[in-house]
């Protein structure tokens, strides 16, 4: 037989065969134990193990000793008379003997009594003393309870320690009066007993009788204290008594009435809507008839009129002729309540009509119109359709620089899309899956240009006062921004000296990576710019600062690419892209107008760098939502579909645009004003400091 036994739970409902012959049993030798699992196993396991003592005749569990009381026969008297019937308590309130004096004297009472009686033993008997104390106790408890009830105490408060300790609610006069009525004793004795009782109560701070003592509070977890009331929440749910009285009946009846009234109203509503519908039907028929009367041949008129007259006479509502093949709007319902209500509408049923309420009960919800798509979401544009490749129509129109294979080794660089306001945006790569040709920002380019200009101007950067009203901009950059500016200023100032200076500048800037300096890039991005971007900018700045190969005379696309070392770094670009994408502020800060006016030498520089895409329609920058594409598109916008100036041109910035651009964080100034503008972004007070900065310093303020 199989040895793969395992314990199987015993099915309690399955009949088990009674085996009388032990030989029939399966052998269990060598088999693993197959104990039947039952719920009590664990409980039984923790039972105490009986500890037996072995005797000659067997075992027993020893128990402590017992002795008989020799005087029992006289202590307890044989006075009981057996009844023939079972003993039943009266009235269902248990056994209470109204004459039993519950109080029993304790040792202290006895001592007092003995002393009090002195030489005359019968002055106050024990029994009377007990009786008086008992009366005092119960009366006091009753008085306290009365007072507390009047004051609205809860049951828990009534049995609290404090409440039970009170003796003030039964005044002395009242107590003595009570004693006089219930116990016959002399006044002096009553007073003495009362005084004794009161003193004892005060000394004890609790009732003398255990029955009247405070119950152990439920929240008292001292195990010495016993007999806590069980809280209501702990009571078994089965003991919860649900009221089933006339109040409940009345409530339920009213609910039913209300529901039925509601149904009546609904019914009227349906009736009204049907009338309206029928009116529409009639109207429809009428118009159809009129049309037909006008256009059908005269010979058919009679037939047509008869048809419509029949329809009009029809008792049952009917759809207009020609519309009666549409499916029924309301299928039958199974709603019990409605069925009940419908049953009452016998008259309607006679006409075979669907009960009124059924008509609404299963109506389909009105169709929800298709959600219009977001109008301005980026929609990819088929590039081929635009013929954007070299020599393509659009490309020519936009005067895009020729695409350089070196900069876009993977081909497929252009990623035009439709931006907000139907602007066409041409990304230089597809976001998220192609390397992004980080173009830098206008400021950087401006600064680069400014640096060059400054170099040409003898490096007197300090001479450029914060004159152009962009002063508000400086504080946006924060400390990092200031540092960076100073650094650049230093770099710019040192540019004429050696190329090494520029390298120093780069190093310094790299140390500053991670600072909010990147705000410079787009003044209102609020610090969202990335360290990567920062380092790129700085490097670019440094290079431009040394700017050996830049020539104003060459077309932009023939200039050397200042960003070449950042090309083909998809990871950096991706990181920058991700962070930029999360800053909607960039969009808000980039109003299209600004973009359009951003035709600075820097823009030209950018446009001239290899592989840089140009933007298309006006305002495309904003639509690009803060991605680098935005800036890329915005600068050359120069050439934009708006057809303003050529991408390579350096048209003077309209004067009015300058303040706006500055406020928006876009530096768009004519090349010659570059240095001044750059300085303007620094707080005026730093001008002096800047002059002290040597090449390669951190420029910390």
């Amino acid at each position, binding site marked *: 037989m199989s040895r793969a036994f395992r314990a199987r739970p*015993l099915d309690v409902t399955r*009949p088990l*065969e009674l085996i009388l012959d032990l030989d029939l049993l399966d052998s269990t030798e060598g088999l693993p134990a197959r104990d039947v699992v039952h719920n009590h196993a664990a409980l039984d396991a923790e039972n*105490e193990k009986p500890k037996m003592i072995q005797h000659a005749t067997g075992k027993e569990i020893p128990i402590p000793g017992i002795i008989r*009381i020799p005087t029992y026969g006289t202590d*307890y008297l044989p006075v009981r008379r057996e009844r023939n019937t*079972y003993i039943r308590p009266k009235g269902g309130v248990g056994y209470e003997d109204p004459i039993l004096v519950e109080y029993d004297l304790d040792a202290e009472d006895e001592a007092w009594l003995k002393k009090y009686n002195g030489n005359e033993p019968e002055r106050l008997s024990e029994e009377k003393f007990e009786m008086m104390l008992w009366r005092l106790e119960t009366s006091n408890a009753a008085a306290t309870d009365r007072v507390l009830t009047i004051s609205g105490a809860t049951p828990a408060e009534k049995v609290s320690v404090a409440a039970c300790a009170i003796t003030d609610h039964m005044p002395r006069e009242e107590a003595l009066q009570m004693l006089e009525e219930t116990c016959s004793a002399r006044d002096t004795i009553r007073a003495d007993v009362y005084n004794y009782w009161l003193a004892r109560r005060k000394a004890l701070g609790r009732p003398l009788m255990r029955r009247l003592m405070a119950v152990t509070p439920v929240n008292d977890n001292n195990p010495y204290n016993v007999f*806590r009331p069980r809280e209501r929440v702990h009571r078994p749910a*089965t003991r919860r008594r649900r009221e089933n009285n006339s109040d409940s009946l009345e409530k339920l009846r009213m609910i039913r009435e209300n529901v039925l009234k509601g149904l009546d109203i609904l019914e009227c509503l349906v009736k009204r809507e049907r009338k309206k519908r029928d009116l529409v039907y009639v109207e429809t028929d009428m118009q159809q008839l009129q049309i037909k009367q006008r256009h059908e041949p005269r010979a058919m008129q009679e037939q047509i009129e008869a048809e419509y007259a029949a329809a009009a006479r029809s008792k049952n509502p009917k759809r207009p002729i020609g519309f009666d093949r549409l499916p029924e709007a309301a299928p039958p319902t199974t709603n019990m309540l409605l069925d009940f209500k419908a049953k009452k509408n016998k008259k309607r049923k006679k006409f075979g009509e669907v009960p009124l309420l059924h008509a609404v009960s299963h109506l389909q919800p009105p169709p929800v119109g298709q959600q219009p798509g977001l109008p301005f979401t980026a929609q990819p544009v088929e590039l081929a359709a635009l013929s954007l490749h070299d020599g393509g129509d659009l490309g020519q129109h936009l005067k895009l620089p020729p695409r350089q294979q070196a900069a876009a080794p993977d081909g497929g660089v252009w990623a035009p899309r439709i931006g907000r306001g139907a602007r066409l945006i041409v990304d230089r790569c597809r976001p998220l899956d192609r390397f992004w040709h980080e173009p830098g920002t206008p400021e950087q380019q401006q600064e680069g240009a400014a640096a060059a200009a400054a170099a040409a101007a003898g490096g007197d950067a300090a001479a450029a006062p914060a004159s152009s009203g962009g002063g508000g901009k400086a504080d946006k950059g924060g400390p990092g921004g200031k540092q960076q500016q100073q650094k650049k200023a230093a770099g710019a100032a040192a540019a004429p000296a050696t190329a090494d200076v520029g390298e120093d500048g780069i190093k310094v800037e790299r140390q500053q990576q991670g600072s909010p300096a990147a705000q410079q890039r787009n003044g209102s991005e609020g610090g969202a710019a990335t360290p990567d971007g920062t380092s790129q900018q700085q490097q670019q700045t440094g290079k431009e600062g040394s700017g050996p190969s830049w020539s104003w005379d060459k077309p932009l696309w023939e200039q050397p690419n200042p960003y070449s070392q950042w090309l083909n770094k998809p990871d950096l670009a991706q990181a920058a892209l991700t962070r930029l994408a999360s800053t909607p502020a960039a969009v808000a800060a980039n109003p299209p107008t600004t973009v359009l006016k951003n035709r600075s030498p820097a823009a030209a520089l950018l446009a001239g760098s290899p592989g840089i895409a140009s933007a298309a329609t006006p305002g495309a920058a904003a639509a690009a939502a803060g991605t680098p594409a935005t800036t890329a598109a915005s600068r050359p916008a120069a050439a934009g579909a708006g057809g303003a100036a050529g991408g390579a041109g350096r048209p003077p910035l309209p004067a009015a645009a300058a303040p706006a651009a500055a406020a928006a964080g876009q530096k768009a100034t004519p090349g010659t004003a570059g240095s001044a503008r750059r300085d303007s972004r620094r707080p005026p007070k730093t001008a002096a400091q800047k002059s002290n900065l040597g090449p390669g310093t951190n420029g910390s303020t």
Partner: protein
Amino acid sequence: MADRRRAVSKGHSPPPVDDGGLKVTQGAGKGKRVMGGKPQQGDVQMADAGQQQAALPPNAAPSGRIPIPRSQVRLPLEVATHLECRWRDDKYYPARIIERRKADEGGPDAYEYYVHYRKFNRRMDEWVELSNFNLDTVCPPEPPEPGEGGGGGRTRNQRRKVDDDHSEEEGEGHEDFDPQQLREHEEFTKVKNIERIELGRFEMETWYYSPFPPEYRECKKLYFCEYDLHFFKQRHQMLRHLRKVKLLHPPGTEIYRNGNISMFEVDGRKGKSFCQNLCYLAKLFLDHKTLYYDVDLFLFYVMCECDERGAHVVGYFSKEKASEEGFNLACILTLPAYQRRGYGKFLISFSYELSKIEGKVGTPERPLSDLGLVSYRSHWTRVLLNILKASEGSISIKDLSDMTMFKTDDIISTLQHLNMIQYCKGQHVICAAPHVIEDHLRKCGSLGLEVDPTKIVWCPFDARADYQIVRG
């Protein structure tokens, strides 16, 4: 005092035994435990324990402990010392000192020691004199404590943690208690506070600690009124109280009478005083009983022997008015003086008779005590085997449950304990060979006192009716 105790034991023979009787209970409230059982297993007739010689090896030194030479034994002995102590049968048993105190007499250096016999249940713990010890077997407490041993409870508590042989009684079922207080409580309850009680015809040594009101805790002996169970510190107080008492039976409804045996049902809410007193009393004989909660939610079924002096309480069981978990019994106790008369079995049987009337399967609240487990096992065994003996073919556990109102788990447990659930051809079967059944039946003793179901006049507790009465 030890001598006196021994004299007591010897001088009186334990009641004749035919089977055990007593057991446990719980009291009120969420109490926990049923205990009980019969002191004697099987149908062995016990003779006078005092005359019996125990068969235990007298020199069973505590295992793993090596006695120190007599000359190094210092008096007084430390708490937690292990040594052998003479028991009431004049044999020596391994024991452990739990507490010590100055003796009332014998000079300033005389101490009494509270010892736990390691082979017996805690109920046998007692105060003994030094002369009861076998000082050749002294094993000092380990690790030895530098200071005096008789100090406060804290140090004893710490020492006790070192001991492992006492753990079986500790700890279960007190989840509601504050741990710190529970420790103190355990510490405090290690020693019986009341040593003996007088109840009616008998004076009984108590078994366990009971949380009497503070003013009673220092009494060595309490006197209970036999009828309403009020307890007193002095006998004349009890007698004076007795003169006032007119009610010579428990304050409840008589629901059964057969011969001189009556059962009274006392509602914990109506007979609160009686029921609380009963709980105080019962706790003296029940280890795993708690008086944590009040008696309101319980019904107490009090078993009485009736004679011309009234109805004498001999035992009881309590039962929740509405048990969510299907318990038909919370605590069960037969007073020691009335044990071994089959009363324990009677109470168990009665609880199932009530369950039959209710039509509800029931089971005792766990855990069972040693005595309780033995009694219940024997009852289940006897009832089930008698049914199997009369059955043919096949029978399911559920059928048995329907017939007996035993919970199916209890049935399985019992049959399994008897090794009667076996496999035949890969199926569970009940092994009901006649000679096996007879064997088991013989072992589980007599039927005890039988319950005559026709004499029960009872209707199940009806919360609604009860409520109506209360509201008036």
